[in-house]
């Protein structure tokens, strides 16, 4: 009975969503003429290159125009790690070692993972360093690095992660982001203003865009450390013994 009620309810929601989005034709140009700046999208497409020297408009939006959102987003990740630590906290007996649920992998998997790991990390670093030039950025690069760590965690039963190092990376990257924001305030501008360097550089150079690449690199480190931390916490749960 409850099932049919739920299906009925869902059909109503679905019909209502289709009605709502039916008036938004797929592929139509809603940005409008780029030169008259009537929508924010048009403004960003027109002004990103001349005003920020960043080739990737999405990066410019994420880090600069809507950088405040991104700061909040990084905070959400940080709070998720903190909350996970608080929810799954367990008192360890004295001298008790951390133990993972996983079984020991075969030698082949171990060696293969160890071979792959540096390349995965390198790809991740490449993605977040070039976030202002090519598709990708801090979040994507950080996630790639975290998959590298996931591979190692799965392959080695007792792979030790430096928890101190993770905390340091997380905190320092967060401080860099918030600190750049406050630096903008101290120098008389607005929060997160892109004014730490005198020039913004040439478009499509590796060093261009002022603080935008620096923030994205910090975000990359932070995301990598946080995702790895989440994976480590979730993998270190002891199963019930019964």
């Amino acid at each position, binding site marked *: 009975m409850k099932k049919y009620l*739920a299906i009925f309810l869902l059909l109503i929601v679905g019909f209502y969503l289709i009605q709502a989005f039916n008036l938004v034709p797929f592929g139509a140009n809603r940005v409008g003429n780029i030169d008259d700046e009537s929508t924010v999208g048009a403004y960003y497409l027109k002004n990103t290159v001349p005003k920020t020297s960043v080739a990737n408009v999405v990066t410019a939006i994420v880090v600069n125009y809507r950088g405040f959102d991104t700061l909040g987003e990084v905070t959400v990740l940080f709070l998720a790690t903190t909350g996970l630590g608080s929810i799954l906290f367990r008192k360890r007996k004295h001298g008790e070692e951390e133990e993972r649920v996983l079984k020991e992998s075969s030698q082949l998997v171990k060696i293969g993972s160890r071979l792959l790991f540096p390349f995965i990390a390198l790809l991740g670093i490449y993605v977040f360093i070039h976030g202002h030039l090519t598709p990708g950025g801090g979040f994507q690069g950080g996630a790639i690095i975290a998959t590298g760590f996931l591979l190692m965690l799965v392959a080695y039963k007792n792979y030790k992660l430096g928890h101190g190092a993770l905390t340091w990376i997380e905190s320092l990257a967060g401080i860099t982001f918030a600190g750049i924001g406050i630096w903008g305030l101290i120098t008389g501008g607005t929060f997160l203003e892109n004014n730490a360097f005198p020039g913004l550089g040439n478009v499509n150079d590796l060093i261009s865009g002022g603080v935008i690449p620096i923030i994205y690199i910090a975000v990359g480190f932070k995301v990598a450390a946080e995702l790895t931390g989440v994976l480590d916490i979730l993998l270190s749960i002891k199963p019930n013994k019964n």
Partner: protein
Amino acid sequence: MFGDYQNVVTMSVYGSSIALILIGLYGVLIKKHLMKIVIGLSVVDSGVNLMFVAVGYIKGGTAPIFSPSVIDSKPLMVDPVPQALVLTAIVIGFAVTAVALSLVIRLFKHHNTARIDQIKSLKW
């Protein structure tokens, strides 16, 4: 309603993301296993994210990146704003899923079951 080609495309792209949202909601409402509920939540998230990207698409547009080969020709580009928003939405979805999973682990350890009908205070 399906008179011309444009409408068919609109319906199939939006229809698939709305279908994802509904499938996910169905999982959350009906399924009794906590893990399936969490999976339902992430399916809903994917549906919403797909919707964002679909809405930002402009026919014939390229990625909004002024790489050296296109910086002078200024081609038509898709709307960059939904792409930036969806990045935020994905990360937040990840964080919520992580917290949900940790709660599932807590519940499983406490009650020795992950079935919602056997956890008394979760019935509602």
